[in-house]
């Protein structure tokens, strides 16, 4: 059984415009199904605005999903009671993109790390102190630094603190929403390696959301590619990167620098901008920018199908 | 069309506010300590007499019924009877409000004529003598207890120099102009009654300046800071660089944009002047709403106090509506949005 099983998840937002309130519906996540196995990492890639962050927040019910099912260890969490949900929050945590915005600037690191323990009534004061010190050791923070405020740390250190906070309750699943995109490249790898070490040590599962394909390749077991709220391709990392099927995936990968100069990959330039999710194109939502688009693409919504063993893509031309 | 829609929308939004105001004033009326029936009948009242009067006044009804009666009264122009003047409060309000309105408008006139140029000059001479002077002047203006300034002006210009009249709206023995608006200056102008017009203006100078002191400070500061932002913008610097005359750039181009935040502040300044009129009228024995309210307070004349409160709140709301509409017509961005 998968640790997390998401089926046909939808996250629609209604925005009101103007005095009379003409409503528009933004389908940030539009029928996504994924699974994450214990100790494994699912990478989710896509351009900004494709709904990958909404997917992560929806799974944690930071925003209430509009439709669909989210099962954690077989237990349905959509519509779950607040009390049970609170308990489950110990099992699934989130690491945010911006280490400058994700830590309360008015609390010390100790207070930040103690908060999860207090909220869930873990241990007494002394036990909590021990737990926090133990935790800070894991992320390479000295004991004395615990009484400092977030602004006294570098971006990389802050992101480690964010990770430590997520780990404080010994969760099984971490949703990491662009955890390294705000960091310098040199610091990125440190944080990624830390995440990999912790995964080994604590048998963590990750959902790793990023727009950076090389980072995702480095850390993931499986990769899902999102476009306008839908998954267009999903498979093991090797399959997606070596034999991408969907034209969108191919376009994204063609922009990556090629390590082996003998393998010539012609760069595919996507036409136009990402369409507005409040007014997505008909049929295959990618057809407005797709180099392979034909007339049918504007009419038929392509289902996500298993085109090769374990390799799913949503395109009628594959 | 757009403008009509905008104003219609604002009028709709006024309704809940007006209802809220009526509830709040009703709630305040109901906090009066003591029993109104006993207040009327005096200490010798019998329990039966008290009970009968309470029943008669509707004091035994549930609160919402009392509120309903209160609202029904307001809609029929009935705000109760002033225990001091023994007249219906509405009649008193009608009699006293033109004087307050006239004084407040005069103060707003001074505010605009002084405040905006001061703000512009201050901004265009940033950190120079004129700016320093204006800033200190505005700072003191905002911190000034208006009623105290009134006393000082009275002391100097009336008692010491005797160049300006110190109280009332007209010289003693002078009869007011024919009633048209109730505002003496306007009525005197309309009827061509020059001696009365002169006296009315002279009488308004001291209370007008007193009332305007604070609002001049507010408007000067806002104009200055808004103009400073505008003057740093590229198109103004371009205009200067092209050698356009300074005054044309300042008052033509820059002020047109710099005035927007000032306009939003106008409604608030007007409200401040209306509120301040209560104190200033007391200083200059200006027979307006403020003077009426202060007398009412001293005679524990509660219906009168509530009448003034309600009227001033409604005036304030209407002025804000006018300011919003003005803003709508001046700011082209709002029309297309």
């Amino acid at each position, binding site marked *: 059984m998968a640790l997390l099983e998401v089926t046909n998840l939808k996250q629609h937002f209604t925005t009101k415009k103007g005095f009379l309130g003409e409503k528009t519906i933004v389908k940030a996540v539009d029928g996504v199904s994924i699974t994450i196995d214990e100790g494994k990492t699912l990478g989710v890639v896509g351009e900004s605005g494709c709904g990958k962050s909404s997917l992560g927040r929806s799974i944690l019910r930071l925003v209430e999903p509009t439709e669909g099912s989210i099962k954690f260890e077989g237990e349905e969490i959509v519509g779950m009671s607040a009390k049970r*949900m609170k308990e489950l929050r110990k099992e699934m945590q989130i690491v945010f993109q911006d280490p400058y915005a*994700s830590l*309360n600037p008015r609390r010390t690191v100790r207070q930040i790390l103690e908060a999860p323990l207090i*909220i869930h009534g873990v241990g007494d004061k002394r036990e909590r102190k021990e737990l926090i010190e133990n935790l800070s050791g894991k992320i390479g923070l000295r004991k004395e630094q615990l009484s400092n405020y977030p602004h006294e740390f570098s971006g990389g250190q802050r992101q480690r603190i964010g990770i430590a906070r997520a780990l404080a*309750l010994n969760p099984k699943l971490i949703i990491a929403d662009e955890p390294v995109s705000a960091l310098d490249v040199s610091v990125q790898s440190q944080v990624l390696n830390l995440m990999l070490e912790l995964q080994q040590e604590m048998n963590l599962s990750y959902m790793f959301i990023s727009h950076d394909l090389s980072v995702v390749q480095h850390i993931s077991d499986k990769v899902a590619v999102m476009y306008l709220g839908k998954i267009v391709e999903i498979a093991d990392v090797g399959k997606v990167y070596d034999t991408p099927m969907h034209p969108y995936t191919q376009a994204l990968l063609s922009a990556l620098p090629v390590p082996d100069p003998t393998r010539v990959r012609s760069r595919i330039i996507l036409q136009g901008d990402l369409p507005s999710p409040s007014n997505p194109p008909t049929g295959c939502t990618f057809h407005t920018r797709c180099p392979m688009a034909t007339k049918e693409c504007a009419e038929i919504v392509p289902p996500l199908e298993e085109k090769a063993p374990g390799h799913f893509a949503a395109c009628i031309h594959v | 069309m757009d403008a009509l829609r905008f104003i219609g929308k604002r009028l709709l939004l006024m309704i809940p506010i007006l209802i809220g105001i009526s509830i709040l004033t009703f709630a305040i009326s109901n906090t009066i300590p003591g029993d109104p029936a006993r207040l009327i009948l005096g200490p010798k009242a019998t329990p039966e007499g008290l009970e009968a009067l309470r029943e008669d006044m509707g004091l035994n009804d549930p609160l919402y019924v009392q509120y309903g009666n209160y609202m029904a009264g307001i809609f029929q122009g009935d705000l109760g009877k002033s225990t001091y003047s023994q007249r219906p409060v509405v009649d008193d309000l009608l009699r006293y409000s033109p004087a307050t309105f006239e004084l407040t408008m005069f103060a707003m006139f001074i505010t605009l004529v002084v405040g905006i140029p001061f703000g512009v000059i201050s901004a265009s001479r940033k950190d120079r003598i004129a700016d320093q002077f204006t800033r200190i002047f505005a700072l003191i203006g905002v911190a000034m207890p208006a009623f*105290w300034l009134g*006393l000082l002006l009275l002391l100097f210009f009336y008692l010491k120099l005797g160049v300006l009249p110190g109280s009332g709206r007209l010289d003693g023995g002078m009869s007011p102009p024919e009633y048209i608006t109730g505002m003496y200056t306007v009525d005197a102008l309309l009827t061509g009654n020059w001696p009365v017009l002169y006296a009315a203006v002279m009488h308004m100078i001291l209370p007008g300046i007193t009332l305007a002191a604070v609002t001049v400070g507010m408007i000067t500061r806002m104009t200055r*800071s808004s103009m400073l932002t505008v003057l740093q913008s590229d198109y103004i610097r371009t205009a200067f660089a092209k050698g356009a005359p300074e005054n044309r750039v300042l008052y033509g181009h820059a002020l047109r944009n710099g005035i927007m935040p000032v306009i939003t502040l106008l409604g608030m300044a007007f409200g401040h002047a*209306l509120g301040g009129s209560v104190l200033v009228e007391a200083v200059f024995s200006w027979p307006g709403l403020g003077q009426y309210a202060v007398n009412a307070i001293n005679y524990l004349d509660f219906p009168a106090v509530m009448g003034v*409160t309600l009227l001033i709140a409604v005036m304030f709301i209407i002025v804000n509506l006018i300011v919003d509409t003005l803003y709508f017509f001046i700011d082209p961005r709002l029309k297309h949005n």
Partner: protein
Amino acid sequence: MVRRVTSSPLTMLGLFIVLIILIAALFAPAIATHSPTEVDLVSKLEAPSAEHYFGTDEVGRDIYSRIVYGTRISLRIGLLVVLIAFPIGTILGAIAGYAGGRIDQVIMRITDIFLSFPGIILAMSIAAALGPSIDNVMLALAATWWPWYTRIVRSSVMSIKHSEFIEASRALGANPFRILFKEVIPNSIAPATIQASLDLGFVILSAAGLSFIGLGAQPPSPEWGAMLSNSREILREAWWAATFPGLAILFTVLGFNLLGDGLNDLMDPKQR
């Protein structure tokens, strides 16, 4: 930070004035030269002199000493009104901003209603309803002042409520109460705090105004507004009786304004 305060002469002036007022209030008996209430008909209506720095009133009370003791009354009013209005306004503003939706609507409509009265008028009618006394004036002023804090706090809460650190707290399962008091409020009250320091002066000014029209402090209290009200009777004979209490109000308000403006500039270095 300290250097930036000391480098602004106006802020320093404000600080200086506020300190003088604090000292006057704390050590009034030592600083005053006479009793603030003792009647001395022999020396009534005396002009300022070495004996009576600011002269005497119509019953021979020393105006300087009355003003010194008056700082106690004014400071107490300013502090208490802000201390009542600030927490009420802050909590309501934080709830409105954080909860949003219907709760926000209700709180903000109530706020709008209070703000649709010119402040002094609403305070006047509440104080009149409660009956003339200094405590009632304080209640009335607090009742008219809180909506300002609600507005300010709400708008700063709105600007931070989608911050990731607040989402993080929700992801941890913190209850709304904890989020509000540990995460939201501490990060959104700075602008309201500055407003409160400015308001100390304006509250004192308003209270003096209400006392001036007979609603607040009652004679023989050495409250500045009541002293001014009293001075009207002797305006022709004793200019000093009208001048000095007003100066005291002006300086106090000015002091708190300068200090508040200085703090504001510190928070927002662009605004100058």
